[in-house]
């Protein structure tokens, strides 16, 4: 059972109040892109065992999308942050580095 804090409305609640939305920070490829890029965007996933960045929606709350940094191997939630960003912000990276010194960083 995960406990998440919505960065949009500030409510902390358990996961039943939220809806998971898959991997975050996907780079979009549309018409004109190569087959490999389009396939990668649509299907290929990092699915890491460890630090992961995900989209969530506060479905039974404010209804807004946000992002979460989480460890898939321990279910620890490092931080949640606003969805309007193309990569994890520096303070989130720092928080993860503090707890996972061996983590190779966001790539």
């Amino acid at each position, binding site marked *: *059972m*995960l406990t998440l804090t919505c960065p949009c409305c500030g409510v902390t609640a358990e*996961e*039943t109040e939220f*809806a*998971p939305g*898959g991997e975050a920070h996907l780079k979009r490829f549309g018409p004109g892109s190569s*087959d*490999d890029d389009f*396939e*990668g965007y*649509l*299907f*290929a*996933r*990092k*699915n*890491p*065992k460890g630090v*992961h960045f*995900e989209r969530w929606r506060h479905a039974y709350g404010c209804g807004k999308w946000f992002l979460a940094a*989480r460890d*898939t*191997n*321990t*279910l620890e939630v490092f931080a949640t942050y606003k969805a309007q960003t193309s990569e994890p912000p520096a303070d989130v990276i720092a928080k993860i580095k503090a707890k996972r010194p061996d983590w190779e960083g966001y790539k």
Partner: protein
Amino acid sequence: MKRYSIFAVAREALRYHSGWERAWRSPEPKKRYKVIVVGAGGHGLATAYYLGKVHGITDVAVIEKGWLGGGNTGRNTTIIRSNYLQDPSAAIYEKARALYEDLSQDLNYNVMFSPRGLLMLGQTEHEVRGYKRTVHANRLQGIDTEWIGPQQVKDLVPIINIEGPRYPVLGALLQKRGGTARHDAVAWGYARACSAMGMDIIQKCEVTGVRTEGGKVQGISTSKGEIDCEQLAIVVAGHSSVMAEMAGFRLPIESVALQAWVSEPIKPCMDVVVMANTVHGYMSQSDKGEMVIGGGTDGFNNYTQRGSWHHVEETTRALVETFPIISRLKMLRQWGGIVDMTGDRSPILSKTPVEGIFVNCGWGTGGFKAIPGSGFAMAELIARGHSPLTDEFGLDRFKEGRFIDESVAAGVAH
């Protein structure tokens, strides 16, 4: 390998059971094998077994980081069926179901295959239409399924409530030769047969890296040293993405937790398997008398083999409505496994961008039923570079848009 038989049992009974051998050897790894299979679950062991039995390749090692059959093979709800909608799925799942029929004789190991019949309840009009379509598809595929009405469901399953307040039972898709088997025995039987053919099954040996050179596989690094190979089969279910990253490619896979639980044992009350996909629950009674229950997957990536409690609650609530007699049953055990989900809910049996590396993954929530067919097809793919059973299940289908969409057909974990 000494054969198991009634004479062996009688002989051992007369000498205090002192003559039983270990079922399989636990050797140290050699420096080099022709084929290495990573993952000693059902699918990995079956792949090794059919490599030896059908294709005569016995220079094989099966590498396992934990213990044999300790992953999803020992965590599923043991359901076997082949009533799939799409032709490629029906072919491989029916191959598996057919192999299960005489697997005990083939392996000389009792896998307790019990074709007791399997019902998939239709509880909404849409589901009824969907299942009737599946019955028609199955008829064309040569798979024996039929649509039965609510009263026939009640006759087959006296403990069911067909007039449930939320979801009345409108009928069911029946596969009479579907059923269950002893999941551990499937892994153990294959392991014993592989070991008897001279293959090495190496447990407690974690793969830490995959060595490639010029786009071709050279070998693997493990916690027990370097091992070379000509061909490498990655058959690791929930950890497929982790292994793929070691080999330098990505898979269209997400790993999520799926849970199951069993009740205290009770007297025999239900001799078929019942799946209620609308309400996300399925139940059968084990030979020990426990009601074996499975539910839905979590929606987020997870490697912990623990799922979320609300799924247990939702599934149990739905099943209590469908089977009122279980409302006072105590649940004995609950556990989770990490399943590898693809976008179209169909597996991947394929070559990969690295020459010599093959993947068998993406079975998601329904891999146990497919073990013999999956192993048979995978062995053919490795030995001959091509198998009619795996043609449609290649990695390239995602690029080419040839999905084998079973997410509608199954609708739920199974």
